[in-house]
């Protein structure tokens, strides 16, 4: 028995090693063929969540709205008025918070996407990247009602529609690339180290404060050395939010640094996330 050369036998019969990670192009092709799995899973997850609450879809919008209200109330009282002088504060806050929510939810759901679907991962073979991608698609779906409600809030507070509103989807597209990259990186880190899920909310909170949701970074840092603002603007999350704000609000603007960081950062994190996730494909699902 032992003298049989099994590897040669397998080679002759044209068999491939099981669990071997396919090359990246083949992997992405297989993902594309199964894209319907990711979109359906995203839809079903939303439906399952909705059927559990009486308010259903309402919570998709209501939950970030209430959070924004809490932050707005607390920080509106605490923060010095100079941090938002001349701002139409409520539209400023709600725009920022809704767009931030897209990042925060993609990050936390992406982190849990492999470990939280262990049963599925253990029983069916499919490109694992579909799971974190599906988490981002889900949040993209949820972003649609949020943006509709945002439009009403903006109009209600005297920010009227203009042609520049049409540029918002372009910004959100690059933000989606960024979020997908982050979700992929977080998904793999969680597989290596379960404890990572405990750190995710802390990182999210840190980014929330660094991003300037309830105050304007540009105003707060105006009197500090300019390198501090430059540093703050190297945070892509802030850049997407600031770009959306300047498209829907009066008197908000963005500079080249914000534009370039947003676009380049989105593409770079997306590609980096894909490679980072794919290179550990053989590890997922093994306890």
């Amino acid at each position, binding site marked *: 028995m032992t003298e049989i050369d*099994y*590897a040669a036998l397998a080679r002759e019969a044209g068999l491939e090693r099981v*669990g071997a990670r396919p090359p990246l192009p083949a992997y992405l092709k297989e993902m594309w063929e199964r894209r319907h799995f990711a979109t359906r899973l995203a839809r079903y997850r939303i439906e*399952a969540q909705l059927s559990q609450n009486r308010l259903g879809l309402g919570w998709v919008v209501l939950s970030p709205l209430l959070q924004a209200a809490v932050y707005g109330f607390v920080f509106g009282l605490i923060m010095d008025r100079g941090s938002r002088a001349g701002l139409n504060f409520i539209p400023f806050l709600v725009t920022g918070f809704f767009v931030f929510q897209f990042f925060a939810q993609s990050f936390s759901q992406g982190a849990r996407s492999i470990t939280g679907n262990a049963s599925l991962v253990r029983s069916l073979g499919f490109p694992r990247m579909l799971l974190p991608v599906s988490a981002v698609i889900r949040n993209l779906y949820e972003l649609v009602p949020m943006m509709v409600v945002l439009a009403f809030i903006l109009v209600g507070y005297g920010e009227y529609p203009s042609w520049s509103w049409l540029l918002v989807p372009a910004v959100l597209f690059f933000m989606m690339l960024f979020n997908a990259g982050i979700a992929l990186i977080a998904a793999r880190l969680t597989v290596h180290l379960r404890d990572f899920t405990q750190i995710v909310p802390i990182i999210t909170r840190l980014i929330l404060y660094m991003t300037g949701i309830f105050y304007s970074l540009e105003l707060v840092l105006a009197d500090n050395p300019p390198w501090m603002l430059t540093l703050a603007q190297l945070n892509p999350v802030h850049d997407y939010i600031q770009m959306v704000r300047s498209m829907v609000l009066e008197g908000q603007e963005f500079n080249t640094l914000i534009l370039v960081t947003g676009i380049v950062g989105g593409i770079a994190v997306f590609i980096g996330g894909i490679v980072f996730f794919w290179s550990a494909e053989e590890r997922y699902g093994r306890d």
Partner: protein
Amino acid sequence: MTDKQTPTVVVDNLHVDYKIFASGKAAKDRRSLLSRQRGVRVVHALKGVSFTAYEGESIGVIGHNGSGKSTLMRAVAGLQQPVKGAVYASSRPSLLGVNAALLSDLTGEKNVILGGLALGMTPEEVEERYDSIVEFSGIREFMDLPMQAYSSGMAARLRFSIAISRNHQILLVDEALAVGDKEFREKSEQRIRDLREEAGTVFLVSHSMRSIMETCTRVIWIDHGTLKMDGEPSEVIREYKKST
């Protein structure tokens, strides 16, 4: 007899270890913060298993509890990384294990659709086969319940029906039929025989020798992580029974 046939699965000197971060008495003497090996115990679950499976075979896998049968199935499915050796296969094997549901908070209907899509079917194909999958599972009236509300037998029925819906493949069944009732077991054993005829390869882990005798053309006996015997079902089962 099997020489002229096409191999579908080749297992080459497979070694699988489990590392366990143990605590308690056995780990105590080595406990030190500085050593990376703090309390790590290694279980050699498979110690060099080799065999070849061919088209149209259904292979029973037997052995006592903890002998490494499930580990072997997980390694063949590519879900367990070998420390040494490799598994080669003609297509990605799908493993039907004992875990209850795919996505337990979603309904049976959605599990069927997602399962089909994950197996690589197009949405149209899933729609086409949906009825036959549900029909085979025999639990149509529960399709709108979340799978966490299923009994273990109901969940096993649905999972088996999903996995079997794609033809020409390598199917690994690890005690997944054990919880099904008599009617379903007979139906699924028939389906396994059909699959074999369609040039598929089936592995069946079971403690029921009767079920193995009825469905398998070959039996592999795993003992303490090594392949103890490989051959005709009646012969291997006779030896296995003698040893216990």
